[in-house]
């Protein structure tokens, strides 16, 4: 085998490849986005098609405060990543805790909203098409928030007990991508459910 030809060739270029974590997360986000698109399409398709009440206009209120909380948690998680990269672990923990708190407030807001809808307005998933599409779309998003919060809480624990170092910044970054995605989806859900659909 004449390897000479192989070796004498051009010098080997530096060989850098994209990060698996980021590519994998990007793929996951594509897939998740497709799920949300279907639910959003179903929501839009059924706006105003319910045979009986209540209508969104009767019962929905703009969740302004919780929306602000959720959106600002994108900044806090970003700051946590930045600080971890710079090995500022305490700050990282702080920002992570802030993120978890903001997310939890959002969830609490959703819980209160649902409580109100179910017990005061009698709107359940069985009531009409609005109930069906509303609970499934908002619920799907909320379940993603829950998953994100669980992961972030884990990260927070690792950060507090010191097992997460700046070596893990790339991983935390991948997680933060997911969190940004969950936020971005909320913007869409907010616009469709509370602005367009009301």
């Amino acid at each position: 085998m004449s390897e000479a030809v192989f070796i004498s060739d051009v010098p080997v270029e530096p060989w850098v490849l994209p990060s698996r974590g980021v590519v994998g997360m990007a793929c996951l986000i594509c897939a998740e986005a497709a799920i949300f698109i279907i639910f959003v399409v179903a929501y839009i398709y059924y706006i105003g098609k319910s045979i009986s009440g209540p209508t969104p206009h009767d019962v929905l209120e703009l969740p302004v405060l919780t929306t602000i909380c959720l959106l600002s948690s994108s900044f806090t998680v970003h700051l946590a990543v930045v600080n971890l990269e710079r090995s500022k672990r305490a700050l990282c923990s702080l920002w992570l805790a802030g993120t978890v708190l903001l997310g939890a407030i959002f969830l609490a807001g959703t819980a209160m909203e649902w409580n109100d809808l179910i017990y005061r307005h009698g709107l359940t998933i069985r009531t009409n098409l609005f109930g069906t599409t509303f609970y499934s779309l908002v619920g799907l998003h909320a379940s993603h928030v829950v998953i994100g919060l669980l992961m972030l809480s884990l990260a927070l624990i690792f950060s507090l007990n010191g097992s997460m170092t700046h070596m893990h910044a790339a991983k935390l970054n991948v997680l933060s991508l997911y969190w940004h995605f969950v936020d971005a989806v909320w913007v869409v859900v907010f616009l469709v459910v509370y602005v367009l659909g009301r």
Partner: protein
Amino acid sequence: MATQTPEIEILNQSTPTEPRHPWLEVLHGWVTTVDHKKIGLMYIGYALLFLVIAGVEALLMRVQLAIPNNTFVSPQVFNRLFTMHGTTMVFFVGMPILFGFGNYLIPLMIGARDMAFPRLNAFSFWISAFGGLLLYFSFLGGDGLYGAGNAPDVGWFAYAPLTSRVFSPGHSTDYWTLAVLLSGVGSVGTALNIIATAICMRCPGMKMSRLPLLVWLYIVTSGLALIIVSPLTAAQIMLMLDRYAGAHFFDTQAGGSAVLWMHFFWIFGHPEVYVLVLPAFAFANEIIPVFSRKAIFGYPAMVAASVGIGFISLSVWAHHMFTVGLGAGANTFFTLATMVIAVPTGIKIFNWLATLWGGRIHFTVAMMFAVGFLFQFLIAGLTGIMLSVSPLDWQLSGSYFVVAHFHYVLVGAILFMIFSAFYYWYPKMSGRMLSEKIGKWHFWLFLIGFHLTFDFMHVPGILGMPRRVYTYEADRGWMIWNVIVSSGAIFQTIGTLLFVYNMIRAYFKGPIAGADPWDAWTLEWATSSPPPDYNFETIPTIRSRRPLWDLKHPEDPDSNYEF
């Protein structure tokens, strides 16, 4: 010079002798493995098992349909048979076998030691496998073990509102939804893994423009799978909410829409058929050049055409809904979008033709199956074009013509190419050669059976025979055609049995293959057969699309010609 390691190493040509473990340990090794090759083989074995099961279901249907007013099976059982046959073939044969080959081949072809996420890989396999078992558990579940148990009977696209609690009481439809949902999760996991592997695990020198075409096509397939399996998952979640939580997504009584389900299903369902066929194209892209002894013609065009097919296929789904009453405007749009697919697909056909042209064609069994694929895919594509002419589809939709069209692709193109892939890569996977003689018998029997069955299946469609009927009227003149169609299935069965026999025989008695039995050009042939756990002792560095060509023809390396 001496500091450099040799970049491609042909390892020792003989099979490494493995120490024999007690069977429990072997089993344990397979169950817990995260090695891409073992997972790939498990995918393939699992798919083959289901191919035989779903094939037997097809045989039972063909017995029932051979003569009019037959009472071999009851209407209830027949409906379960075609539902299980279609669902199994698409979700538990097509998908896993293609993912299996992808899993096995992609890391080898890009000079990597494993997939990007080995544990996700194992998870994806097991969850899909569980989905298949769940689907078949339905035969036992529910009302118990009589007739066809409680197997789903709503057809593989399960149109609403037939799937609602009202029209489908019991749990048969729940088995279907859950099984498909689980297999979908596995598919998304594997698709993600394949993309991440192909992008992030390439060996030095393997630029995107040097990826073997197979890997390119798997990227497209996986990208497509990522975007389309999720809508199906979403639709299944909605269906489950309807059935369990009393939601009304597809409840026509509460103002819900049956057509919405059709849209959601076919947004998945149409691209899905390209997810299935692109890997078949991928095999053809490797096998045809090697046995023509020529480089693939028009590599950039092939990549562009595949990506093009991927994109266009996302916009044609409503050609399955021409008879739903979407209106003239929508029908016109989807007619055009569907026809446009002929252009990139044509590019592929012509490029394969040009690859053959001027070559030196070796008719090994792998190549014979590939040639069968070329002709049959051409015909299948042309009947597809007939169906895309929506007025003609108003006649033919839901008839046996459609059944003939899609079996021409699914069997004539995809299954043929899968067989071809087996003859080509089996030596790599097992270290032993399949018998070419038995292979030729397999090929001819299957070819004859295929044409008897599926050529003549077009005719009853034209004569007005709808699909999914458990029996038919004697006075319509359909019987003679159905007899021929059913008789073809016998040849296919014998062919398939020979194939299975060939594989088992070769595993024990086949001649030793050596690293590179076909004198091929891609990296998987640079390591021993079967490859060691770590694939390559040293990670290779490459300079062109055909690294082994460069190695074998140092005077005229490919890198001089790439564009």
